[in-house]
């Protein structure tokens, strides 16, 4: 089996079950969104895949070889973690230099170029960077390693809107030029939905969705129009939620797009975030 395969992974911290029999595949050359609420188990899953934590049970393989403590498999993986693991007193330039020592494919020229786009000062020490620039340092490094699998754990933490947009654009640009597998773990679903191809939703340590984005979005639709017309239309439908703006109402509906839509109503694509909220709330209610 090629790619990263996670089989029946379980992990608990005391009485808290962080992961419960998680099985999932990350195939080559695809951008994944790993979506979950706070404490859903996203970081635990990524930490186990990248050999930073040990699972209680289960296995993770890369191209059929167990990743755990396997230096060859690990050299094909890079993880940008939420916490910064570079030494506090190390300068930005030295972070790049040392990463290049471990990852010979590291593109120093590209790192300098995108660092300049983010206005990251190469002479600064890691501990003197703000939260946002700390994230930028990790992002620039992760974007430059050139390995087949890159994990981004909350990559835009502390970044302003302009830099978040720049990151998403650079990710698509990089992926278009030289495809690789990027797994972006975040709870900023609206933003990441324009970048990802495949969605993995995790809730309370269980995978609740593992499908291409298009397939998920086709499971519902958004309908907008005058409130009274929308109310009439959705009366017999499964409505996830709705927004009101003046006399206009937008409803998020589960199910296939119906043929008989009144002319004063507009049908658009389902919103991933609404879908996510519904799914994670549903789990809570059913529990």
């Amino acid at each position: 089996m090629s790619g990263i395969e996670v089989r029946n992974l379980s992990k608990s911290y005391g009485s808290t079950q962080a992961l419960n029999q998680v099985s999932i595949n990350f195939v080559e050359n695809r951008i994944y969104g790993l979506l979950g609420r706070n404490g859903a188990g996203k970081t635990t899953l990524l930490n186990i895949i990248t050999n930073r934590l040990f699972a209680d049970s289960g296995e993770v393989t890369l191209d059929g070889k167990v990743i755990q403590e396997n230096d060859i498999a690990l050299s094909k993986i890079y993880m940008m973690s939420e916490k910064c693991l570079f030494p506090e007193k190390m300068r930005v330039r030295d972070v790049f230099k040392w990463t290049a020592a471990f990852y010979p494919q590291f593109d120093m020229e590209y790192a300098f170029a995108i660092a300049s786009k983010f206005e990251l000062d190469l002479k600064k020490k890691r501990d003197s960077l703000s939260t946002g620039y700390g994230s930028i340092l990790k992002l620039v490094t992760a974007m430059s390693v050139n390995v087949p699998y890159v994990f981004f754990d909350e990559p835009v933490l502390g970044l302003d809107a302009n830099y978040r947009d720049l990151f998403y654009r650079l990710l698509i640009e990089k992926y278009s030029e030289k495809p690789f597998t990027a797994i972006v773990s975040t709870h900023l679903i609206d933003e990441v939905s324009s970048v990802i191809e495949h969605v993995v939703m995790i809730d309370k340590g269980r995978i609740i969705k593992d499908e291409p984005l298009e397939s998920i979005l086709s499971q519902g639709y958004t309908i907008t129009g005058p409130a009274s017309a929308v109310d009439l239309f959705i009366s017999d439908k499964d409505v996830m939620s709705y927004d009101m703006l003046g006399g206009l109402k937008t409803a998020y509906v589960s199910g296939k797009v119906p043929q008989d839509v009144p002319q004063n109503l507009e049908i658009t694509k389902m919103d991933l975030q609404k879908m996510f909220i519904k799914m994670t709330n549903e789990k809570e209610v059913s529990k």
Partner: protein
Amino acid sequence: MNLKASYKYVMYDNKRALLIYSLIIILVTVLLCTVSISWSNGNNTSQIGGMEIASMIFIFVAGLTSFKDNFHMLMQNSVSRKGTFAATILGFVTTSGILSAISIVVILITKLMSQIEKNIISESFFETMYPVHVNKVNSILVLLESFMLYFVMMLAIVGIGYLIGVIFYRLNKGGKVALAIGIPVFFSVFMPVVDVLAFGGRITLWLIRFMDFIFGATAQNPYMAVISFMVIFLISGLLSWVAMRKAPLKA
């Protein structure tokens, strides 16, 4: 295994501290010798020696503090725990070798000064421990044996420091506090009191005999010490590996 890069990184981390320490220790030795020469004034004698102990304290602290930062940086760069451990051990061997060589340089400086000014007495740790043995062999062999002893002593000391560092990393907050307070209290308060009240000083006597045995002091055999410290290094290394092989990343 990315051993070369990991080893280079471990050494890079040590390099600056090692350089500063070496310069300071050589400068202090030269300064002490100069002060002793001017103070002796042809009559007063002064004794210089034991600078090797400073190197041993230095390397203990280096071992104690090296685990967390190296582990985090090497984990960030996808190096396995066995890769981290192998690079660390290689780093310790190199650092111990360099510090032992510096200790020999310091001894040579003090010997040279004692040749210039007869009132300066230079006596190394090795000469203090094995006076009978030193009188039996030539000075080149004494230097070689000194190097060998310091090298394995430093390996053992850095190994113990590293083991404590790994255990500290793995403990939770309560465990860290308990260990930090418990060990000094056990050795400085509990054990002496129990020894005096319950054992009539026999524990202290046994410890002295044990230390005498591992150093080979009464037997005047430095090779006993070399073997003892090598065993201590191997045991501390083995225990460190057991403690770190399943260490989770704590960030």
